[in-house]
């Protein structure tokens, strides 16, 4: 009987369930909105628990009568072909993000269809997941068959989009040494609009390009979704990505709502990208948690990565990683003074850890 890990509060709900599933530890969360006028789990959290039940086998989830505490005994990750309706409270990214962490360690390769909102300003959009998060996994040796297909878009409030996530399985991960951030050589992006004038995409692209005049190699695709691909609500969004000579990514994204001009959205997204570039590091703030998790799950070897600034979300993730896997990162602060690398950001953090040697026993060694 392994030790039960106890937490309080509804925050960091998904990551704790994911880490419990991967580590096989029993998780107990108390005081979930116990002082709220509407106490207990929200619908999207319950929906996430249902999704977790679909991709695993043998897990038991006990929810208290008021919904303010749960006990989760993880099972085996089985994956396979799964369909899940994400609802409209949270975007698809909320559900997809944990699945990406579980996918490589599943028994069968995941083939998951998710319905719901594809782009909003709360969760990471499917575009950023496809162009930023998934390529991060490639550095750990997860490559063949890793894809996210976006057959149709769904904007808030009604959603109606659809994505298909396919993930191969691996036996062990590779350690990474990623400390040279390189220099940005190209900027890519996707601007989409649905159920609004088709020019919206182009207007976002034009204003974003105006800010990002540092390099010539800028290619932002402007897409207009029509017919049954366009979801149930009008919407538009832009997702930007800067790639360096060493394949580090910086990303930013923004979705537009009613009454907002596409020019403003493009402009703000571009500025956000600049702010992200200024932070530096080899891993941008959105992919920090995923990369750090994969480093901890790596073989008994040293993994090293350079990051810009830690987000609050990542700091809590580091603490939770310590609770579940007992591994601690060595964090070295580097300042502009000892900088000798061409074009590196002045203040970065070097994150070093030794992997726990996680092995997916379902995958036969080849």
């Amino acid at each position, binding site marked *: 009987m392994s030790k039960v890990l106890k937490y309080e*509060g509804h925050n960091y709900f998904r990551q704790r369930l994911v880490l419990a599933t991967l580590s096989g530890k029993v998780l107990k969360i108390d005081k979930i909105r116990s002082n709220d006028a509407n106490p207990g789990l929200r619908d999207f959290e319950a929906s996430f628990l249902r999704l977790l039940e679909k991709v695993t086998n043998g897990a038991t989830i006990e929810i208290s009568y008021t919904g303010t505490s749960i006990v989760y005994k993880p099972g085996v990750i089985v994956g396979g072909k799964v369909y899940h309706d994400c609802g409209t409270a949270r975007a698809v*990214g909320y559900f997809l993000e944990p699945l990406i962490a579980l996918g490589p360690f599943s028994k069968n390769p995941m083939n998951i269809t998710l319905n719901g909102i594809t782009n909003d300003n709360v969760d990471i959009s499917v575009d950023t997941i496809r162009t930023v998060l998934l390529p991060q996994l490639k550095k750990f040796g997860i490559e063949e068959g890793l894809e996210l297909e976006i057959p149709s878009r769904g904007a808030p409030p009604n959603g109606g989009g659809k994505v298909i996530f396919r993930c191969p399985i691996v036996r062990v991960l590779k350690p990474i040494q990623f400390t040279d951030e390189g220099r940005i050589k190209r900027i890519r992006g996707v601007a989409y609009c649905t159920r609004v004038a088709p020019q919206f995409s182009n207007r976002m692209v034009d204003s974003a390009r105006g800010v990002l005049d540092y390099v010539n190699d800028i290619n932002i695709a402007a897409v207009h979704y029509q017919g049954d691909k366009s979801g149930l609500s009008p919407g538009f969004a832009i997702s930007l990505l800067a790639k360096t000579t060493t394949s580090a990514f910086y990303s930013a994204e923004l979705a537009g709502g009613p009454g907002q001009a596409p020019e403003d959205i493009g402009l703000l997204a571009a500025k956000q990208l600049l702010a992200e570039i200024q932070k530096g590091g080899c891993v941008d703030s959105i992919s920090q948690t995923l990369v750090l998790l994969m480093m901890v799950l790596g073989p008994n070897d040293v993994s090293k990565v350079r990051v810009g600034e830690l987000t609050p*979300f990542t*700091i809590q993730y580091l603490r939770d990683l310590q609770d579940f896997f007992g591994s601690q990162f060595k964090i070295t602060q580097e300042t*502009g003074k000892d900088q000798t690398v061409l074009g590196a950001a002045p203040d970065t*953090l070097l994150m070093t850890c030794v992997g726990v040697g996680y092995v997916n026993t379902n995958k036969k060694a080849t």
Partner: protein
Amino acid sequence: MAKAESVFHSRRRPNLMRLIYGDRKYTPEQIVNGDIEEGPLKLKEGSDEEDSDEGFGTGPGTGGEDNDNDEDFLTLKKEDSDTVVAQMIDSCKSTIEFTDLDIWDNPEFKETIRDRFITGSLDVPGAASAGGDDE
């Protein structure tokens, strides 16, 4: 330029490892915002200070332990942190502060990250003086 540089360097924080892995008395938000008092927080003995980070879910061992005595029975707890917690969203996308982005309208500030691109200067800042010696 001087202003831009000061913005760059104002983000330095001390002893990140100890803040994150130590006794975990600061929330992640406090660490990021540099909202950290110089000396260790004075906890009044026997007071309910410990309960103040209730709900932040800072991990086992930090939340209110089961040491509540019967004295606590039917006393009103202060919960000012609750509203902050309720607004926190479980997402790795950090909330966007649009006002912070206005600095990018300044062409001078935009130049500060020029060297992060391949179009930037080829001089390594530290090696610039060494290059001058050769001449």
